């Protein structure tokens, strides 16, 4: 039995009956019928629903190495000659691809969270002023990092060809993640008797935002160099969280950030194995980038703020707080070198001297 039309449907039915018959109904051309490259596709949902990667079947799953089309033609659909191009400048697969993009897209959607209602804000309790200042300063710093990530992704996003839509879609989730990170950090800073701190000088933000030669170059700085450090910062903050609200915030930021790094490392892996001289270029970029990162590490703001958080106040910061932060930096550089090695980028021999000093710190 057919469903009874709802209010909206019934009202359209009524209005349709009143359409002036003299208006005439144009004869349909049906010129679009039968125009397909592949028909008869029937993808069924699996245990995790119908995922983006599931519909990569037949010709629809063929991802070419070069996508010449500068229109918004969906991959696998029939083109139309004479369409003016759009300025899609990233048209080679090695410039943006990561095999995991479709999976990360679905994961980001499944793991969405809502700062307003899911963070247990009522668990916040007044902290000693020095610790509150340190937490608020870290919120300010990390918010600016998220802002840089947001701005560089959105700068590149509309330059990426439709042929690699999985990456565009994944990056849409990363865009949203960055906006949420800025939001939640602002909320934390302004909800416990504190306020925002002083802005970052922005050395590393600058090299990320100025890497306009290609998206891969931005990824080298954004994820391999700075992102690896941010993971360690977030892990450190999580381990020293003062209340359930902070536990929730840092653990969820870490989850988001882990996805971003997964894309970043996976893309660099693809780029290094498919792009001409890619690893040599990455090596050069990192040699320069390490210098900026080293200068940023040597600035006192983040190190002191983290030491205060680790040390439970200024006094503890002078001793075990700072020691713990130095170990954090050592762990970051160890991670960084391991990933470089995995990607085939030689960094150990010519590692920046400041990085070496942090590594040697026992």
């Amino acid at each position: 039995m057919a469903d009874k039309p709802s209010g909206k449907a019934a009202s359209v039915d009524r209005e349709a009956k009143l359409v002036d018959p003299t208006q005439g109904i144009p004869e349909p051309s049906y010129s679009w019928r039968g125009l397909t490259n592949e028909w008869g596709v029937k993808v069924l949902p699996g245990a995790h629903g119908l995922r983006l990667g599931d519909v990569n079947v037949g010709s629809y799953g063929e991802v070419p190495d070069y996508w010449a089309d500068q229109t918004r033609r969906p991959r696998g659909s029939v083109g139309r000659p004479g369409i003016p191009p759009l300025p899609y400048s990233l048209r080679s697969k090695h410039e943006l691809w990561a095999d995991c993009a479709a999976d990360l897209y679905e994961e980001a959607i499944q793991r969405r969270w809502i700062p307003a209602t899911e963070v247990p804000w009522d668990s916040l309790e007044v902290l000693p002023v020095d610790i509150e200042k340190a937490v608020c300063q870290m919120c300010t710093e990390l918010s600016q990092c998220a802002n840089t990530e947001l701005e560089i992704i959105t700068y590149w996003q509309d330059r990426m060809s439709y042929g690699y839509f999985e990456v565009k879609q994944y990056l849409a989730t990363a865009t949203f993640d960055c906006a949420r990170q800025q939001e939640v950090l602002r909320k934390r800073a302004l909800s416990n008797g504190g306020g925002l701190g002083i802005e970052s000088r922005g050395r590393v933000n600058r090299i990320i935002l100025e890497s306009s030669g290609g998206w891969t170059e931005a990824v080298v700085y954004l994820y391999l160099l700075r992102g690896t450090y941010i993971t360690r910062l977030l892990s450190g903050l999580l381990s020293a969280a003062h209340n359930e609200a902070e536990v929730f915030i840092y653990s969820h930021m870490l989850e988001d950030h882990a996805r971003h790094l997964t894309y970043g490392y996976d893309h660099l892996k693809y780029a290094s194995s498919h792009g001409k001289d890619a690893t040599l270029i990455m090596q050069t970029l990192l040699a320069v980038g390490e210098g900026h990162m080293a200068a940023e590490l040597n600035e006192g703001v983040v190190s002191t703020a983290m030491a205060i958080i680790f040390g439970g106040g200024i006094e503890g910061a002078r001793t075990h707080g700072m020691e713990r932060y130095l170990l954090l930096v050592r762990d970051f550089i160890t991670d960084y070198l391991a990933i470089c090695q995995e990607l085939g980028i030689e960094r150990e021999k010519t590692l920046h001297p400041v990085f070496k000093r942090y590594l040697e710190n026992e």
Partner: protein
Amino acid sequence: MSEATEIPREHELDTSWMDNMAEWGVTAKPGKRGLTLADVQIGSYADLPAISDNMTGRPRGSTPRAEAYRVGAYQVHTLSEIWLDNAEYLYEEALQRQWSSATDIPWHTLKPLPDDVEEAECLLCTFFNEVEFVAGDVPARWIARTTPDYLEARNVLSAQVMDEARHMDVFRKRALANGGGLMRMSGATSGFVGSIDLARDFTEMSTRLHISGEGAVLTMFRMGELFGQNDAEKTMYRLCAQDEARHVAFGVMHLRCLGDTAPERREEIECYLDEAEEQLIAGQQNPAGRQSESSEALAVLLGGGSQHYDEGHKKLLVIRRRQLKEYMKRVISAGFTDRFENGRSPIPAQYAATA
């Protein structure tokens, strides 16, 4: 074993930044809807600069540093260019109403359809797969160009980028899940002068994208119950309509704000509306428009098959009529009523002709 106590190293600390915190002593409290962005618009942190001098990407309200690098060459740095009064609410709503095309669509309700109906649905899905991410690509570009001082508005645009990715994805999934496939692209959103993509001003872009483009699509999505052939499709259109309504609201509220705060730009906005109205029913960007192939497909779906094309076409005319009516309501709500009363706009006449 030595019993000597290990004395930890003592480190010098640079605590000068602790004397340079921004406004201190702020305690925003969560309300009925949790701790929202509106709740943290408090004290000086709520102060929105009419013209932003933030060229370093610092969070609004934080303490500036004289030696910070000017890395943000933000094109949009005047409040009236992008602001809207309810941005924080739209953003929070977007967070609350996220959905998953993988698990929230009842895909199991898809059943084999007659060939003409499946082809019509697949053509419509191809159209949406193609055009939905215009509204992702373009707002993304404007996020990067907008000062973070206007973070509430930027965050709404970030949510829109996310929404559009999901729309692009759900229509692709539908096209490939029921024995069909993608069909021929429309080319409706390519690089023509006066298109959404090529606008060099945010409000011009928003007028085209949010008010006319997405407005027309919103009316159509709301009619999804009529042309959806099963619960999967009806759910898909309903959820997309929910998202689209937020995007349209952004455009309406921004236009209202601009009209109030920058009256010198009203005539320019009227010109964008003139252009948009020429294309509203005639243009290819409206899937129910007179020139688009997808309107034939819609008539097939609305009629329940090509044998009932005429009945379907009559319903299509009703949808077009609603698109015109809802468009006028939005423009009136944005504060541009005069154009419908002084004969400037062709829409009232078009609307009357469809009666």
